């Protein structure tokens, strides 16, 4: 190898040969330098995933040795475990509430910020701050904000002469309360929307102006279509995150009252680390994976009808 390199310099070698030497070198180094990420994927993603699939077919308790029991765990889930359905329902409810509300709010605020607002960076900073709060501190803070007797939420409602709420302490309001918490963190999606809005080419708006269109026409026929890929990205990420909510319920309610906030991952955590039923918990994990996969595929499918990609039309 070293020899050819010196040869190349000594003689006027044709460029094609030089390039092929470079291609070989890039091939070798590409694999070597890509190795950390590829090994990481094998050892910490795909390997564990396959292992999880196998464990889900056993009755593994943390102490004993695993016995193969076929699909018993899965049939137990569907036919013999009311908590499974309850947790699935709570999780769907939470995702269905928190994802659209958070996205809607962040989109709205991004639109407002995109109106050539003065002090843009100040507003943007304020709206982003809640995203930085560590999950555990966030839950402690909201336990206090939503305290039925002395919390800020009820204090404000009383000031406005509105009925107060039990928030986390009632079966009907516990999930909406957690959705409200999620909305406080709207700044993450907002920044992505804002960047997307700033990337919409100005001349498109100008062409609408030439045609005599107003603000609404610009919004409907330029902003919305140009933003659909960003909306789509935030939607998929929001759904994946929403289905995996854990800390709120774990710290604030322990899944209560009456299991109304028993999030799926909390139920899975308990099955694995309190009851030590690793086999059953792995089956729960695989089912969650399938649910998220199916929902994501459905969103991707629907995307064909509403997501606009610039390259498509021309």
């Amino acid at each position, binding site marked *: 190898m070293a020899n050819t390199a010196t040869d190349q310099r000594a003689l006027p070698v044709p460029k094609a040969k030089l390039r092929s030497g470079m291609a070989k070198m890039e091939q070798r180094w590409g694999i070597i330098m890509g190795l950390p990420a590829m090994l990481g994927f094998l050892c910490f993603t795909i390997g*564990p995933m396959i292992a999880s699939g196998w464990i889900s077919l056993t009755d593994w308790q943390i102490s004993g040795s695993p016995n193969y029991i076929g699909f018993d765990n899965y049939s137990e889930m569907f036919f013999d475990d009311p908590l499974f359905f309850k947790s699935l329902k709570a999780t769907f409810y939470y995702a269905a509430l928190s994802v659209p509300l958070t996205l809607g709010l962040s989109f709205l605020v991004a639109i407002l910020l995109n109106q050539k607002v003065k002090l843009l960076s100040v507003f943007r900073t304020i709206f982003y701050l809640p995203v930085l*709060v*560590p999950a555990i*501190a966030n839950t*402690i803070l909201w336990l206090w904000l939503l305290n039925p007797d002395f919390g800020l939420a009820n204090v404000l409602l009383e000031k406005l002469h509105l009925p107060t709420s039990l928030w986390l302490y009632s079966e009907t309001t516990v999930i909406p309360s957690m959705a409200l918490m999620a909305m406080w963190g709207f700044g993450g999606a907002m920044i*992505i929307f804002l960047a997307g809005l700033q990337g919409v080419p100005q001349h498109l708006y100008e062409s609408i102006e030439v045609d005599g269109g107003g603000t609404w026409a610009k919004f409907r026929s330029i902003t919305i279509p140009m933003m659909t890929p960003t909306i789509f990205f935030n939607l998929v990420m929001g759904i994946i995150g929403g289905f*995996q909510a854990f*800390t709120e319920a774990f710290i604030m309610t322990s899944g209560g009252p009456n299991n109304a906030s028993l999030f799926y*991952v909390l139920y899975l955590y308990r099955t694995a680390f309190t009851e030590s039923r690793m086999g059953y918990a792995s089956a*729960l994990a695989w089912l969650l994976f399938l649910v998220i996969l199916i929902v994501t595929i459905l969103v991707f499918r629907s995307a064909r009808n509403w997501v606009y990609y610039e390259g498509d039309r021309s």
Partner: protein
Amino acid sequence: MNRAPASSSLRISTRSQARATMIRRIRQAGIYGLLLIGSVLTLLPFLWLLRSSLMEPAQIFLFPVEWIPDPFMWSNYREALTRVPFDRFFLNTMTIEFFVVSGTLITSTISAFAFSRLRWKGRDLIFGILLTALMLPYAVTLIPMFLFWKELGATNSYIPLIVPSWFGGGIFNLFLLRQFFMTIPRDLDEAAYLDGASPPQVLWKIILPLAKPALIVVAIFTFIAVWNDFLGPLIYIDDNDKYTLALGLRFFSGMYNAQWDYLMAASTAVILPIIVLFFVAQRYFIEGITLTGIKG
């Protein structure tokens, strides 16, 4: 006579202009009004946090609600942070930070270089496969990883929290760096290769100096992720003296669950360093989020 219509149309146009200005002003007022209300609502929980952290218990439970602490109980912070050894938790967290941030920076840079600036067979296919990890729920790998580390006797140590970061630093960072590397013109590398440089040399001498902002973004995001991580330490760490700040705060909240003054002081102390970091490095934050969000 000819002038009259002209001047009246002029008057109309100034009038309609005035109307347009007025509409614009009302719109502006509406926009700023909404933004202001939004800002107040966003900041209120923070104010509630601070005010509660500096009050005596008696004042916290007073009706009607008071916003200004009287007296300012700065001692709440000292009390809260010494009742359980938060200094120890801080050192533990920083130990993990050191190894995870360095592992992530080193290995994600090397691998992102391979996936963006070297051309090799299978590169894009493999990267596409790696990207699927973004969609994989962490719950699926949680149990087998726990059993794996337990089998190796590595639970109740920081090994399970650190080692994965030395293998590519997670797909998110890999993706972010790759996006950034791809914006650097390729002529630079080619010229260096023709001069006999090797890919690691090109990475070190050409790419790294240009990629400093992206590396800072990765370092900041990783630092925050470790600081905020709760589930990882919860599963792997048993001994109190090995707790991280997040675990320690939860431990503390279990012991003093009605002492809102102490709880808010401890929470503020855990939140504050991240907020300070954000203000110091704000420019990089916005850049980083934009880089991964849009082009995704």
